C-alpha cells in the first residue's frame, strides 16, 4: 500500500481543528523542514493515521480514533501554523 499525502486527511483535520488544514504550514521538529500539510507523507489504514515529514520521514502527526474520540498527537511538529490553513475561503 503506497503512502498518500495530507490531502487524504483534509476532512479529518478540518473536523478536529475547525479550519481548512491542507494549506497549514508545519515545521518538522526533527529536521526543520517546513511544508504544507497537503504535502506530508500519510499512511492511512493502520490502526491509526500517521503523517511523516517528506524530507526525513520522522513522524509529525499521529491520529487515532478511539470510541468516537479523535486523538491527535502533534509532538513531531516544531510548529503548525493554523492561520495559513484558514487561507482563502469563499
Amino acid at each position, binding site marked *: *500500500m503506497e503512502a498518500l499525502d495530507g490531502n487524504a486527511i483534509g476532512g479529518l483535520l478540518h473536523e478536529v481543528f475547525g479550519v481548512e488544514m491542507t494549506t497549514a504550514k508545519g515545521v518538522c521538529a526533527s529536521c526543520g523542514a517546513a511544508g504544507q500539510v497537503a504535502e506530508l507523507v500519510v499512511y492511512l*489504514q493502520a490502526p491509526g493515521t500517521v503523517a511523516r515529514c517528506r524530507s526525513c520521514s520522522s513522524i509529525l502527526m499521529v491520529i487515532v480514533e*478511539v470510541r468516537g474520540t479523535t486523538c491527535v498527537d502533534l509532538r513531531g511538529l516544531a510548529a503548525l501554523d493554523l492561520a495559513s490553513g484558514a487561507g482563502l475561503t469563499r
Partner: protein
Amino acid sequence: MIPTTLTYAERTSSRATSSNVSFVSRGFRGRRRDPEADSTRLPPGQHVTEDFPVLSAGPTPHIPLDEWSFSIVHGDEKETWTWDEFRDLPSEEVTVDIHCVTRWSKLDTTWEGVSIDTLLEQVEHEAAYVLAFCDGGYTTNLPLEDVSDGKAWVAFAYDEEPLDPEHGGPARLLVPHLYFWKSAKWVRGLMLRDTDEPGFWETYGYHSYGDPWREQRYAGD
C-alpha cells in the same frame, strides 16, 4: 454516464455514540460476510478476507541481510543473532488464523519461523514483560508468557516464500492469539522488562493486551 440525482440527509461530522441513532445507508452491507466461513473461528466483529492487506505506519524498511540482527536485551545484557545464526536455529512451520484490529481475519495462514522459546532459552531472566522493537522505530508490548510456550515465533517465511518486505520481511513477530498489531513487522529484538511499557499503538489508546476473543481493541475494553 447518466447523472443520478440524490437528496442529501442532514450532514453530520460527529461520530455517532452508542446513544445516538445512527444514520443508515440503505442497502449498504460492507464487505460481504462469507457464509461458508466457520464462525466459531472468527472472533467478534471480524470478517474473513482472502487477500492480505498491507497496513503500515511508515515506509517499508529494506535492511540487507548482512546488516540484520535479532537481539534479546535484558538490562545490560544482550544476546544477538546474525541472520545466518538465526537461520541456523531450529524452525517450524505453523498454520494459524490471524486477526487484525481493523476487522479483517485470515484463516489458515502458513508461516515458518523460530519459536521465541528457542531464543529465550539462551537468556537467563525473570522478566514478566517484553517490548518488541523494530526497524522504523515501531514497538509493541506483550506479557512474556504470551510469547512463550509455543505461542509466538519470529517468522521469516509466509505461504512457503521468504517473507515479503511489505509484510514485515525479512522477519516479523508472529503472535496469532492476539490482534495482529502485536505481530510486529521488521522485528529486530525483544527487550525483557519487569514492568509493562506500552508500545506505539498502545500509547495512543489501543489495548495493552489485545485479545481478539474478548474484543480488546482499545484500552478499557
